[in-house]
């Protein structure tokens, strides 16, 4: 009974519209382009601003400058010192989040309709006239240092640091965007000013707004907020050369459990096979309970609490990564299961049933992402940075639907290289020999 009902529902799936979200592409009077979704039922607006380049623009000896700069933007601007700025923001009940990632820096804003102009005026001081007072820099630096110290003791971070180091060598992707204890200690106010000039420029700006705001209001807001930013920033670094080789790395760490980071080369976001690879990843290690690795490693054998894999198509390099944790005495068996499944799928592909389950999941889950103004604004900026049209929202599921069993077989053969998998194991694994 339940099985029949489920089957009947599946057929309806593609009908659910992500395109309930209606995007307007606007250009402000001053020439700033943005995507807008008007949603007037709740009196606030979410604004997402990103600049391409992010922490990858750090110079080698200045690693951590971009992140420290972003974290210090709200620590005093214009006439206000750190406390004054924070008090003003709190009085407006506005939220400003400044973040730095490898490929972009972001400013995520939410502001009430009742005091939006004041919130924008305050934010503008942070974006155009940050003070970078020495005491503020030192205070935030101490926080970053504590994070770096904590990372040095965290088995997950240790594992991924090593993986990235092997994967990306001399490229900025190889090291933490937090920087090192040495590099962060040496950063100066001038370094932060330079980092800001490198990344916060209009030639790499992407914006979206979702909420209680009209096209005309947004246009004026953007010119006011972002119009004074410099026209150009620093050139992006070159593509990363992937140096990853197959094998096992063991890093001794006293803990009852070993943490495992594994993976090999992935696929570029604009590769014609990207969607087939994306569906294939869902079958193998997608989040949720149906995936092959979750079934084999957790459900059948109880070797882990959770295992998943992800394609990570960054702007300048792409990997296919997975992770899990197992008791030290079980981790060797778990790694064997992962290798076996990787080899099996590379050779045999996946069953039609698995393929269909992955496709229905991915197409059905897509509209669920659009839940809340802030999340929608983030997705829309991500689409712009991936060079996708607004119609992608409508068409995306058809790309998933179009993936065939032959596509999966071809892409599995092309991408899945069991011998190329590198496992970085942090813990005290029993019966596991490192290899080069």
């Amino acid at each position: 009974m339940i099985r029949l009902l489920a089957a009947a529902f599946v057929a309806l799936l593609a009908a659910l519209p992500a395109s309930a979200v209606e995007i307007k592409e606007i250009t402000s009077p001053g020439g700033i382009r943005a995507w807008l979704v008007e949603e007037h039922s709740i009196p606030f607006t979410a604004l997402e601003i990103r600049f391409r380049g992010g922490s990858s623009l750090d110079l080698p000896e200045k690693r951590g400058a971009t992140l420290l700069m972003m974290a210090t933007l709200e620590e005093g601007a214009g006439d206000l010192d750190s406390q004054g700025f924070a008090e003003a923001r709190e009085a407006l009940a506005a939220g400003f989040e400044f973040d730095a990632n490898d490929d972009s820096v972001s400013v995520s804003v939410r502001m009430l309709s009742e005091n939006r102009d004041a919130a924008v005026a305050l934010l503008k001081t942070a974006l155009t006239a940050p003070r970078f007072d020495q005491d503020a820099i030192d205070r935030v630096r101490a926080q970053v240092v504590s994070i770096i110290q904590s990372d040095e003791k965290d088995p997950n971070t240790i594992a991924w640091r090593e993986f990235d180091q092997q994967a990306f060598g001399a490229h900025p992707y190889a090291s933490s965007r937090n920087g090192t204890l040495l590099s962060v200690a040496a950063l100066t106010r001038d370094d932060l000013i330079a980092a800001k000039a490198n990344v916060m420029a209009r030639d790499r700006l992407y914006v979206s707004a979702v909420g209680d705001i009209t096209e005309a209001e947004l246009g004026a807001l953007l010119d006011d907020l972002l119009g004074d930013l410099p026209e150009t920033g620093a050139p992006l670094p070159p593509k990363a050369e992937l140096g990853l080789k197959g094998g096992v790395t063991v890093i001794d760490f006293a803990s009852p459990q070993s943490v495992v980071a594994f993976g090999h080369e992935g696929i570029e976001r604009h590769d014609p096979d990207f969607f087939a690879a994306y569906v294939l990843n869902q079958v193998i290690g997608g989040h949720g309970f149906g995936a092959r690795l979750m079934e084999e490693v957790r459900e059948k054998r109880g070797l882990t609490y959770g295992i998943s894999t992800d394609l990570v198509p960054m702007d300048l390099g792409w990997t296919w990564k997975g992770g899990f944790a197992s008791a030290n005495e079980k981790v060797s068996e778990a790694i064997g299961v992962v290798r076996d499944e990787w080899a099996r799928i590379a050779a045999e592909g996946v069953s039609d049933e698995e393929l269909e389950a992955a496709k229905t999941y991915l197409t059905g889950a897509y509209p669920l992402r659009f839940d809340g103004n802030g999340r929608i604004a983030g997705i829309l900026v991500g689409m712009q940075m991936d060079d996708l049209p607004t119609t992608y929202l409508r068409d995306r599921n058809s790309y998933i639907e179009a993936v065939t069993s032959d596509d999966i077989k071809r892409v599995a053969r092309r991408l899945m290289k069991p011998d190329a998998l590198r496992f970085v194991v942090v813990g005290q694994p029993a019966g596991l020999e490192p290899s080069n």
Partner: protein
Amino acid sequence: MFRTLRWTILAATFAAPALADEVTTFTLPNGLEAVVIEDHRAPVVVQMVWYRAGAADEEPGVSGIAHYLEHLMFKGTDTLAPGEFSKIVEANGGADNAFTSWDFTGYYQRVAADRLELMMQMEADRMRHLKLTEDDWQTEREVVIEERNQRIDSDPGAIFGEQRRAALYLNHPYGRPVIGWRHEMEKLTRQDALDWYGRYYAPNNAVLVVAGDVDPEAVRALAETYYGPLDPSPDIAPRVRPQEPPQLAERRLSFSDPRVSRPYVTRSYLAPERDPGAQEKAAALTVLAAMLGGDGQTSILARKLQFESRQAIYTSARYDGSSYDDTSFDLAVIPADGVTLAEAEAALDAVLADVQENGVDPAQFERVKARLRAGLIYAKDDVGGLARRYGEALTTGLTVADVEAWPDIVDAVSEADVKAAAAEVFDRRRSVTGWMMKTGEEEVMQ
């Protein structure tokens, strides 16, 4: 304030929004309570079923059974094979999961609104018809032990938190970890799970929350169809747990581990929770926590310890009044380089003493109240969060009326209320102080 700081464990609790016109409630004859929250912005729905059964309801000796059963609930019924529940949800493009706490166990699915009927059919099915085979329960016990390895034993902060909690509660079962003590988890059996399931998993011990693009009358009709025929459990008794005796001696715990990168000091006070019809004290504590630690820059602890004296790189204050029995008010300080734990603790105590003696800054008080009011507007953007608030309230002894009265009660808190709440709760005899240290660099606890 720096967002990605790893110690952002302790967030402030914000007031729940008044959405009375969009919330509908009903109760089925078999005792199932239901709350429907309408949000028609997107064709999506969340179904949650909350059971009034959590780790604090466990009998001594079987800690972890509530959480273990939560895992086993995905193992199949008379009509569903093991794992099939989640596979059907996923095949319908949905996401599902579950959670266990001291006062409740909950299950949810997020799906397209037109899939609600199937979700209800399956959730109702496993409310009374769970089936556990020999294989299932043993493998899953390994999984929850791996979960313990990952969440607790791999994390010195979590290990110490578990020990501190055990010390905070002298008699109440809140002192036990939700995931269970390892030596008891290793002995959990299929029969333990079935006993727990048979006793607590029934419509008269459950709360259904449906939130999203739905019509309340249609939800009621579906609930009558699928949940209506289920038999209530005869074993549901009033929840009476062992209560705390007068706490007369403060407890001081120190712990060291080689994996600790920075030492820190914590302080937890036993604190009253939100009670039905009597939420004023909890409201004052909620405002107090927001003032002490709600913002990384403007809160009292941040201002005094991070900006003025610069003795700390991070501070926090947290209070969550959603609890069936006495909860806790938690504080933490990560000292700056060169500052000892003893100095950091003294600095924390000085701030707490000042608040009790001199109250709070009126300007900050007004800003925090404005922030809490704005929280009502922002919260409307997160219908899943609203659903959690109702589910949590109704399984921790509150009513829908209490949830709806809460924003006004918080708004009515005065500066004097905050000062009085601080004076009442910050009593060292009812507290646990923790010093987390790095092995080899221990400080002698004072």
